């Protein structure tokens, strides 16, 4: 058990830190949390939005969680199953979890393996529309060996078998409560979806959808001294700036989530001295996707598809490398992200073991080198300051992203930077619900990619990038044939890459997997399919009186709320 010693040390440290403030359950009164997106439902299987997953994480819990540094920690179990301790079979097709003894649901009944079996059936029901189905990829069956033992069998060897029941996206719900809510009945169970019974530190007392949730301490929580807070007020709605103000300036709230606010404004608010801005980095990367296919409108149906042929100039790595070199990422961070951003040259910057150093050339802007690359590749500067490709195409690109003030600021800066190397940029922004919506009839979705470049953030849940790196497989290219569903947005094609994806799905061992992932990362970056910009972190703020906060981008931000307390 790799993480056990650290975990024990952490627990010991926590016990010391917690001190007198958390001596008794409910002794610290109320904690007020504000999320500027309000939770709509407290069943994360029916709504995968972060607001819904994190608000319900106070109540329902997975078997294991990721801690603030991305290590897996046992939560409802005593240890994480591995091949070494026999929990994972030698052929990597089964994993067996053993629940800790004596864990009770908040209604006083014991948590058993049957609850986990039920949860799996509930989510895998084909008519239920479960939004966390991805956690159950390749699961053949989930069985209860005995009351406390859960055995998950996969259809194929899984080198990373920690999909089901790990992390905030895959909690366990109570079989007794949700028994009548399977499949098509799932949406009709309003009471259950608004007030799930859980094993977590809090229970729901009142839920006003899209507005506010109130919680009180769970009387049957496994640690009799926790949680320190008797009640939680979880308010939602409004906008990020006023949420920040309510913690940092007026002090009405204790914790505010996801403060995507211009860094200047945030530091002004922090100067009021009531709270602290904190940040934490997970796997989110703001990146530009290059369209390797031709988005020319004259191609009609073949626009942005493989059949339409390659892009007239972006398929040339010299051009994309020049575009990347021309970017001063430091300025982008200062202008739009502050503490919430770091320069990155990889699409996979985290966990640290997976971070490649092969692309660090992108960290410093080098206009001269970019110009030299383009000159060398035969792109001559035209009389209007825009280069022309050897085939006579002007280097003029349409660059689209979703509507959001930081993104539009970044777009404007990039346009200026690219003008310096003779690339003309036309900017476009689309409403997020249209851009990220999958309406196959809409020409404006990010999957259709009727543009040359597009910018957005993506990330992956947990710490294992296997599925994430498989996004750029050749057979995952969006096209009319698959209803434009597909993750390979740049239309990147490489047999070598596909082979690496296959290899990773069969390789166990952290070092070997990290090595594969880095190679894949380097291929995607060096081909120019993706121009990474910024490693984005979460930014939150908490009142100075709040103690025990360990901001976590790998799991729910409220993962350790049981340990929170109030400084005396």
């Amino acid at each position, binding site marked *: 058990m790799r993480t056990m010693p650290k975990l024990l040390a952490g627990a010991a440290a926590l016990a010391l830190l917690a001190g007198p403030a958390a001596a008794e359950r409910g002794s610290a009164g109320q904690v007020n949390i504000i999320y500027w997106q309000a939770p709509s439902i407290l069943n994360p299987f029916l709504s*995968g939005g972060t607001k819904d997953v994190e608000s319900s994480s106070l109540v329902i819990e997975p078997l294991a969680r990721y801690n603030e540094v991305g290590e897996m920690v046992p939560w409802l179990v005593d240890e994480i199953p591995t091949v070494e301790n026999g929990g994972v079979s030698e052929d990597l097709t089964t994993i067996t979890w053993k629940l800790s003894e004596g864990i009770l649901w908040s209604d006083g009944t014991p948590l058993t393996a049957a609850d986990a079996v039920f949860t799996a059936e509930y989510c895998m029901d084909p008519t239920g529309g479960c939004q966390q189905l991805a956690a159950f990829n390749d699961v053949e069956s989930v069985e209860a060996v005995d009351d406390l033992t859960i055995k998950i069998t996969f259809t194929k060897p899984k080198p990373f078998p920690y999909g089901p029941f790990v992390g905030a996206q895959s909690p366990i719900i109570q079989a007794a409560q949700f028994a009548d809510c399977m499949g098509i009945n799932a949406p009709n169970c309003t009471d259950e979806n608004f007030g799930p019974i859980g094993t977590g530190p809090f229970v729901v007392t009142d839920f006003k959808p899209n507005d506010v949730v109130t919680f009180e301490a769970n009387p049957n929580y496994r640690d009799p001294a926790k949680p320190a807070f008797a009640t939680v007020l979880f308010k939602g709605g409004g906008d990020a700036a006023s949420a920040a103000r309510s913690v940092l300036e007026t002090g009405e*709230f204790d914790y505010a989530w996801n403060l995507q606010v211009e860094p200047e404004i945030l530091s002004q608010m922090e100067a009021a001295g009531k709270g602290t801005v904190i940040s934490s980095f997970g796997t989110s990367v703001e990146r530009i996707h290059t369209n390797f296919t031709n988005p020319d409108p004259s191609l009609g149906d073949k626009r942005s598809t493989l059949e339409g042929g390659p892009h007239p100039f972006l398929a040339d790595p010299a051009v994309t490398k020049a575009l990347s070199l021309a970017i001063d990422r430091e300025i982008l961070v200062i202008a739009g992200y502050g503490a919430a951003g770091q320069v990155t040259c990889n699409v996979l910057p985290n966990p640290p073991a997976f971070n490649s150093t092969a692309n660090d050339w992108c960290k410093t802007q080098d206009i001269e080198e970019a110009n030299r690359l383009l000159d060398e590749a035969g792109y001559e500067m035209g009389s209007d300051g825009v280069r022309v490709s050897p085939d006579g195409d002007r280097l003029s690109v349409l660059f689209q992203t979703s509507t959001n003030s930081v993104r539009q600021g970044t777009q404007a800066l990039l346009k200026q930077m690219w003008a310096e190397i003779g690339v003309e940029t036309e900017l476009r922004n689309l409403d997020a619900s249209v851009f990220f919506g*999958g309406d196959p009839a809409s020409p404006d979705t990010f999957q259709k990619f009727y543009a040359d470049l597009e910018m957005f953030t993506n990330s992956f849940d947990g710490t294992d990038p296997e599925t994430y790196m498989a996004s750029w497989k050749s057979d995952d290219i969006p096209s009319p044939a698959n209803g434009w569903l597909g993750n390979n947005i740049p239309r990147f094609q490489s047999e070598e890459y596909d082979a690496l994806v296959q290899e990773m799905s069969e390789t166990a061992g952290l070092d070997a997997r990290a090595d594969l992932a880095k190679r894949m990362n380097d291929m995607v970056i060096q081909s120019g399919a993706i121009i990474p910009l910024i490693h984005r972190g979460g930014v939150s703020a908490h009142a100075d009186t709040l103690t025990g906060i360990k901001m976590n981008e790998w799991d729910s931000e409220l993962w350790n709320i049981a340990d929170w307390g109030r400084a005396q």
Partner: protein
Amino acid sequence: MLTYTLRRLAFAIPTLLVISFIIFAILDLAPSDPTGQLPLTIPPEVREKIRLSLGLGEPFHVRYFKWCVQFFVNEPLNILEQWTGWSLGDPDRPRVLSWQTRSPVVDLIVERMPQTLWVVGMSYVVGIVIAIPIGVLSAYWQYSWFDQFGTLFSMIGFSIPTFFTGLVFIVVFSVWLGWLPSIYDTTLVVNSWGSFWEQIKQMIMPTMVLGLFNAAQISRFMRASMLDNLNQDYVRTARAKGMTEQVVVLIHVLRNSMIPVVTVLALGVPQIFGGAIITEQIFRVNGLGQLLIGAIQGADIPTVQTLTFIFAVLIVLFNLVADLLYGILDPRIRYD
């Protein structure tokens, strides 16, 4: 009058049906997607299943027909059952479900209606109370310093958007002075003088922001209507008969000037139910406006459809009310 009312109501039915169809069609054509707000970590295949589970796999006319049955038949039956305690057939009839919360839209509306009526309704009352004296006095002392000030006030109130006044109020009263809460506590239960005071404190800012905006508009109507009447012959007659200025202005002129203003006020009532999207969002009042904007952003089509349709019903109804009021207030107008 009765036959006129009945005829208008009968006309309203096809009008509303056409409106509901148009709303549904527009929402269906809009390129937003209920899974558009989900994290990108949810893969496209799962998104497709989510869409199917929401009923998006069915053709347009089937979905419209289902909504009509749910809204025009099932929901009224449910309400009837709740009010009377009768049981009318299968109690598990499908209701209009919100895609975001997976709960019945009508329940969401019922939960949010009181806040909207209190905050937005109160702001309407405040607006009227401020506007009528300003309008009357501005007209009476036309071009005086008071009139100039009233014009300035209404220009400012009219042209400064509520998101700006709201922010200014928060910065002044919450951040600098610390007198009022910047976030509306929707869990507050009023059961004592203390909690009543809390409720008033949290209502002051949103009510005033909206009230000033309303007052600016209404005071202009009032002033214009007063000016129309002040030069009429009957005013001169009243003065010639030796009545005091108070009686002339407040009894003769004001009553006649109120006729157009009352109809304008009646036409504005549906806006109260519609909530004030921006103000509710700024102060986090869980009203109908906030529900609507959240539903639009989340592409929650059943909620948007139901809410906009209810607004349409209210607008049609209050148009009728305004017309009837006109007839009642002005004896010269008769509909039969």
